[in-house]
């Protein structure tokens, strides 16, 4: 049912069309302002001194020589950032990650920061700061960190979720499990069982724009922050809390964003810039280098996953069991738990159990990366299911269709599903021309499914009708992928205006109520809901003003096609009033016309996708090339199909890089060895085929237009789809991501021997 708009019997005039994005011209002509494009009069340049060690005690920091250097205006250490977190472990970890306190916990951990009149002076000052370290043993591998012999990174972490609570600290901060049924009996009932351990390496979101901000704190306690972020309200709240400021005193303005994908949902250097500005009484600009982005921002977890799935000869899965170990970097986290929740979500399983083990290692604090934790879990599950199909002698798509979750299925994480789209994506894949196309020499085809939750969150929207009848829409969710166009379309649809007569802007934090950040694929879903509600409130005001102009009761006016019209027998016979005419008269009918809405957008629909991949492998070098790639995903309702397709393609492209090349490589010294795009290679256009897309629309009953989030699910299937294609191409099961040429060559060599 590609692009079927009949699902709710709604007829759209604007939604579903493909107008140009409002930020397009600025972005292609260089006018758009990104984080590092902001400058303030008299600003200082800040640099951060970072640990060269993976794990060490800070015995002493001597800044005296640096302070005497001409041009240095402020230096801060953790002493300038007192712990104001009042027992909130999550906030304390954020504070400690922004600036090390008693210990450095990973290579690149900040230990001091300098603000000086220029970069050269700041760099000289960093060299004059003396830090006396006492080296500690380190561990960077997710499995090694769980061994009894591993150095314990935090002596106050006792595994949560087990009974009784351990008396000794460890690097395992939490265990959890999900599932239902009896897996022991389920495996007894199986005719065929597949069991493997799968590993995935740590990757970075690879956003092109490094983190950058300008902070300006005045002696009166008021502050401004210009920053690239996925959530300026959250940045404001967290920075104010860490610095002891009233939230209302800190105004944050978001720049355009050059990619985030979850990596800009966390604060890193922003509190440092604010603290430096407060100390120096000058604006401070702080921009991360690419090296810092890799070493000190928030990549995803590396993982180690034990997977076991059993099935009858007819393809019915009888039991599934996964044990998922994910690291959260140097701080306690719950990334494995999310992997365990999503792992088996595509399937209708009678007996299923997924267990999560959270691991702490000497690496940077892990952050979300597009459907966080789901791609690694899907890699293990979908690889095992593909192998199961081979052992049974069943087509891999048919096996998945036979076991696919549907409306009424109890999900592996608990609740029963409402209307969902996994079956539809599988049927579409089965019938897609891609599945029937011939393969060449050294080529293999694979497919895989993926799931992501999506969510809504706190959102608000202001719609203002200007005196000429055009409209501005102010929202608080950062536009990371074309949401301004989608929101403009929804406002235009409701108001009956042309898309060109609606301008959508991202308001600063002093202009709107709190908005959660743009994550969880919530931007178009939640802000769309708020915009639709605000537009409907605005229409009520427009109708009331028309009623005044006609001197008839308000309830005798209806809104149709962008006009107020009299309705009912006693309403009188007046020609329709356009929004332009009502706006022109606003000054004499009650003043400015606006519509507002504030809501919590619970009810985001879950999302499913199926991907198909063809790959070609050079058996002599192990180098692989993706020859063809197709994404099939349920969007609920595609508001602007081009940007839905863009999200599908973007997720697939990042997944291809993750599957084939991208990998954090740590040396024995615990230091990152490839902190740059030359040695950490993300795919560029010439590495990729055209990524074909198919939008399915299974409506989300909790959104007025049926919208589901689309931004994240597209990165869930690629690791598995590509691994299945690679395994089919080389004739050996690939169990370690990335499938870089050395690993592929090794697999081919092992097969031959």
């Amino acid at each position, binding site marked *: 049912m590609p692009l079927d708009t009949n699902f709710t019997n709604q007829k759209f005039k604007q939604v579903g069309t493909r107008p140009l994005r409002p930020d397009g011209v600025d972005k292609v002509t260089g006018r758009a302002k990104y984080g590092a494009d902001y400058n303030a009069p008299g600003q200082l340049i800040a640099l951060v001194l970072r640990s060269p060690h993976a794990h060490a005690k800070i015995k002493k920091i001597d800044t005296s020589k640096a302070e005497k250097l001409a041009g240095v205006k402020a230096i801060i250490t953790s002493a300038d950032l007192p712990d104001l977190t009042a027992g*909130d472990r*999550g906030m304390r970890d954020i504070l400690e990650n922004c600036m090390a306190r008693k210990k450095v916990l990973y290579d690149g951990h900040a230990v001091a920061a300098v603000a000086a009149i220029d970069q050269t002076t700041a760099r000289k000052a960093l060299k004059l700061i003396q830090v006396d370290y006492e080296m500690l043993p380190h561990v960077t591998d997710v499995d090694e960190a769980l061994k009894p012999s591993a150095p314990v990174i935090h002596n106050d972490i006792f595994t*949560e*979720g*087990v*009974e009784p609570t351990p008396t000794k600290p460890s690097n395992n901060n*939490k*265990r*959890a*499990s*999900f599932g239902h049924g009896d897996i022991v009996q389920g495996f007894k009932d199986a005719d065929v069982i597949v069991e493997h351990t799968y590993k995935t390496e740590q990757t970075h*979101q690879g956003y092109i724009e490094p983190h950058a901000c300008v902070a300006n704190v005045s002696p009166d306690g008021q502050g401004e922050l210009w920053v690239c972020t996925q959530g300026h309200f959250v940045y404001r709240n967290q920075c104010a809390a860490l610095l002891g400021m009233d939230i209302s005193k800190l105004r944050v303005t978001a720049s355009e964003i050059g990619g985030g*994908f*979850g*990596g800009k*949902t966390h604060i890193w250097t922003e509190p440092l810039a604010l603290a430096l500005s407060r100390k120096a009484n000058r604006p401070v600009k702080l921009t991360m280098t690419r090296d810092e982005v890799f070493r000190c921002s928030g990549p995803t977890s590396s993982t180690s996953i034990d997977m076991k799935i059993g099935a009858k000869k007819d393809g019915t899965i009888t039991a599934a069991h996964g044990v998922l170990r994910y690291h959260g970097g140097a701080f306690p986290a*719950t990334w494995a*738990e*999310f992997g365990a*929740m999503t792992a088996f979500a595509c399937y209708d399983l009678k007996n299923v159990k997924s*267990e999560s083990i959270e691991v702490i290692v000497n690496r940077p604090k892990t952050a*979300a*990366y*597009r*459907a*966080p934790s789901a791609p690694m879990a899907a890699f293990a599950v979908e690889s095992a299911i593909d192998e199961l199909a081979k052992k049974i002698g069943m087509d891999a798509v048919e096996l998945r269709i036979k076991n696919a979750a549907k409306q009424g299925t109890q999900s592996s*994480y*608990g*609740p*029963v*599903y*409402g209307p969902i789209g996994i079956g539809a994506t599988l049927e579409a894949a089965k019938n897609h021309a891609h599945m029937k196309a011939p393969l060449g020499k050294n080529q293999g085809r694979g497919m895989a499914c993926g799931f992501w*939750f*999506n*969510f*809504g*969150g*706190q959102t608000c929207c202001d719609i203002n009708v200007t005196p000429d009848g055009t409209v501005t829409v102010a929202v608080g969710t950062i536009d990371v992928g074309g949401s301004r166009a989608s929101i403009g379309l929804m406002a235009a649809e409701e108001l009956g205006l042309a898309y060109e007569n609606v301008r959508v802007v991202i308001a600063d934090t002093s202009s709107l109520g709190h908005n959660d950040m743009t*994550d*969880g*694929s*919530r931007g178009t879903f939640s802000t769309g809901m708020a915009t639709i509600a605000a537009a409907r409130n605005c229409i009520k005001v427009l109708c009331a003003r028309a009623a005044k102009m006609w001197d008839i009761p308000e309830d005798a006016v209806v809104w149709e096609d962008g006009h107020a019209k009299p309705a009912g027998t006693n309403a009188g016979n007046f020609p329709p009033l356009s929004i332009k005419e009502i706006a022109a008269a606003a000054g004499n009918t009650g003043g400015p016309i606006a519509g507002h809405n504030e809501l*919590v957008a*619970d*009810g*985001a629909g879950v999302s499913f996708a199926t991907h198909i991949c063809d790959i070609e492998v050079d058996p002599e070098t192990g180098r692989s090339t993706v020859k063809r790639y197709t994404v099939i995903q349920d969007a609920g309702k595609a508001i602007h199909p081009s940007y839905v397709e863009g999200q599908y393609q973007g997720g697939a492209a990042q997944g291809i890089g993750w599957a084939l090349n991208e990998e954090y490589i740590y040396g024995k010294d615990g230091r990152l060895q490839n902190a740059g795009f030359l040695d950490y290679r993300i795919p560029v256009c010439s590495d990729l085929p055209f990524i074909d897309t198919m939008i399915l629309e299974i409506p989300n009953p*909790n959104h007025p237009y049926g919208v589901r989030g689309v931004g*994240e699910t597209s990165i869930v299937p690629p690791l598995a789809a590509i691994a299945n294609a690679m395994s089919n191409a080389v004739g050996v099961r690939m169990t370690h991501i990335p499938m870089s040429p050395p690993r592929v060559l090794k697999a081919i060599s092992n097969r031959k021997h």
Partner: protein
Amino acid sequence: MAEVHLWGALRPIVGGALSVSVEAKNIRELFKTLAEQYPAFEPHLQRGIAVSINGKIYRDTWDQALPADAEIYLLPRIPGG
């Protein structure tokens, strides 16, 4: 009386049970009662718990009613990227 299903990390708090019965008319009351009956719930509530009611997941709407015989699951509060 609502039957509230727990994910694995919460089960040790209630002695290993898969679910608990709670008298509550909405999510706010559910959380309040759980924290009163099982103080070890408190840190989990502070970190955030989502509630699935008949398959619809609520993260923030604490006024949401718990209908009689509803299927209720407590779930971790999911982050996003």
